[in-house]
């Protein structure tokens, strides 16, 4: 029995649980479709409520969306982010600006009101479409990778693992087969989603298809290595899925998958630098800015080495436990 037999076996076993497969894949695909659609519709800039008594107010700008109102807005509308600022027209060219945002932001609005229509906002969205799409996908893909890899924990719980591991296939081939299965199930649906978005919904997805193939391969590899390690360490499915959710959400947010990070904490910034997701998004940004491949080489090597390490640790751990007769 070689790796591909295990692969086929795992594949067929999950295909047999149609309901399970359809739902998990279906919901991830829906989530990704939504996320990409969402990203492509992101409007960059600021929303301002302009409160005035006069009727001839006309603002034209590509970066600022101005709603002209005649009544003051509620404080909760500022809080919930519906409006970034409220500008009250006090007549004779005087304005009062109410906002929860930073002073820098307030200054930008002031210069906008004076007539600078191309004012630069320190907006949360500074990156291109491609990086944003990958940022959204990375979280969903990591969650999905764990969902499918957790079949391995089930195997351990119901004894299937023991039976396969004692055949000539052994632990290593078994885990390799599983990882290969996980790679496919991570890569193929997410790639299909991108194709659907590009050719059916005609959404601008940023990078070319070729670039996406490489980047998604890398992402699937990261997700697989991470989930293999976690599932090797754990014997209990539910606990592990709780830990996984915690880890995935925290690390994805820290690596700035939704927006660029602008914090200034020295210790946290150094922790963030170590995260593979952060390095991954940096590579995407580099490609987006048209930088040479050599600029990303160090980060790429780091990601591959880091994840290979996770992979090897996961396999060794399972093998040691197996030899000690834990299963």
């Amino acid at each position, binding site marked *: 029995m070689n790796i591909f037999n295990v692969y086929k076996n795992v594949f067929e076993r999950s295909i047999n649980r149609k309901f399970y497969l359809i739902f998990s894949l279906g919901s991830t695909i829906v989530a990704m479709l939504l996320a990409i659609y969402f990203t492509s519709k992101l409007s960059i800039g600021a929303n301002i409520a302009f409160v005035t008594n006069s009727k001839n107010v006309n603002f034209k700008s590509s970066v600022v969306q101005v709603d002209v109102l005649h009544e003051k807005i509620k404080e909760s509308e500022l809080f*919930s982010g519906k409006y970034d600022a409220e500008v009250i027209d006090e007549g004779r060219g005087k304005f009062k600006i109410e906002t929860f945002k930073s002073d820098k932001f307030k200054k930008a609005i002031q210069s906008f009101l004076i007539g600078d229509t191309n004012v630069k906002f320190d907006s949360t969205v500074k990156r291109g479409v491609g990086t944003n799409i990958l940022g959204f996908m990375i979280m969903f893909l990591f969650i999905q990778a764990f969902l499918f890899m957790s079949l391995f924990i089930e195997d351990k719980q119901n004894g299937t693992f023991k039976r396969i591991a004692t055949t000539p296939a052994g632990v290593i081939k078994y885990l390799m087969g599983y990882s290969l299965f996980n790679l496919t199930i991570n890569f193929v649906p997410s790639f299909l989603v991108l194709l659907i978005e590009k050719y059916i919904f005609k959404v601008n997805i940023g990078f070319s298809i070729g670039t996406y193939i490489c980047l998604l391969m890398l992402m699937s590899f990261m997700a697989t290595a991470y989930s293999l390690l976690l599932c090797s360490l754990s014997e209990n499915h539910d606990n592990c899925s709780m830990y996984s959710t915690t880890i995935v959400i925290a690390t994805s947010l820290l690596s700035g998958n939704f927006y660029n990070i602008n914090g200034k904490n020295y210790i946290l910034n150094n922790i963030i630098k170590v995260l593979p997701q952060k390095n991954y998004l940096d590579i995407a940004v580099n490609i987006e800015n048209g930088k040479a491949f050599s600029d990303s080489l160090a980060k790429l090597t780091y990601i591959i080495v880091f994840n290979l390490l996770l992979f090897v640790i996961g396999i060794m751990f399972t093998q040691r436990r197996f030899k000690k007769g834990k299963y």
Partner: protein
Amino acid sequence: MNFFILLKRDLKNLAFNPGYVIFEIGLPILLALILGYLNGSSYRTGFSPYNYYAITIPIFSALYASTLTANNFMERQIKDTNLRVIYSPIRLSYIYISKTIASFLFTSFGIIVSSLYFKFILKTNYGGFNAIYAFIVILATCFMFSSLGAMMCCIFKSEEAANKVQSIFINIFVFLGGVYFPTEGFGKVISSLSWISPAKWTFEAASRIIYDNDLSMMMPLILIYMAVAVGSLIICRLTFKVEDYV
């Protein structure tokens, strides 16, 4: 009386599991700290970035109550115990009602602990006394999702399937509801899309209560949430079959 014995057992199952405790108390606090840190420089001085997350993170916990119910209901070891309970002389409905209430109580405890942390350690603004009403809405959300979790389990007959389906939906809701960052400011399409998420409704109600002293959304929302909760418990009754356990 029998019911309380069951409830006590279910609560103990939750409370003595380190995974759940970390998830309910550790993760909310960690998330608020991370998100607050990430957005630190985009708010004006005097307005804590934690103010926003002190409201959205409890909503996040409330939504995840459903995965907790699912775990506490149909996890492999617990499923066997359920079988024994089924054949003891108690009402069948006690099983899923007790699971729902246990996960509601446990999550509420987590929400209250993390909110007290936000209030007294991070010094966030919850408004005045009205904050109590905001938290009543959040707890109602929590109750609805606890019973939805039980319903999913009864429909899918297994914890794994139920959780896989739920976790993706909850993630979408959490995201659209603006838990990680405000989704209102991203244009008309997204802000109208975000209204499919209950997290959004709760957030809107809570922020109106805290910032505008406007209680108008509170009662309708609580009624809707309770109706959904009762509805899903009725579905549990219709779909919960003893045969699935044997």
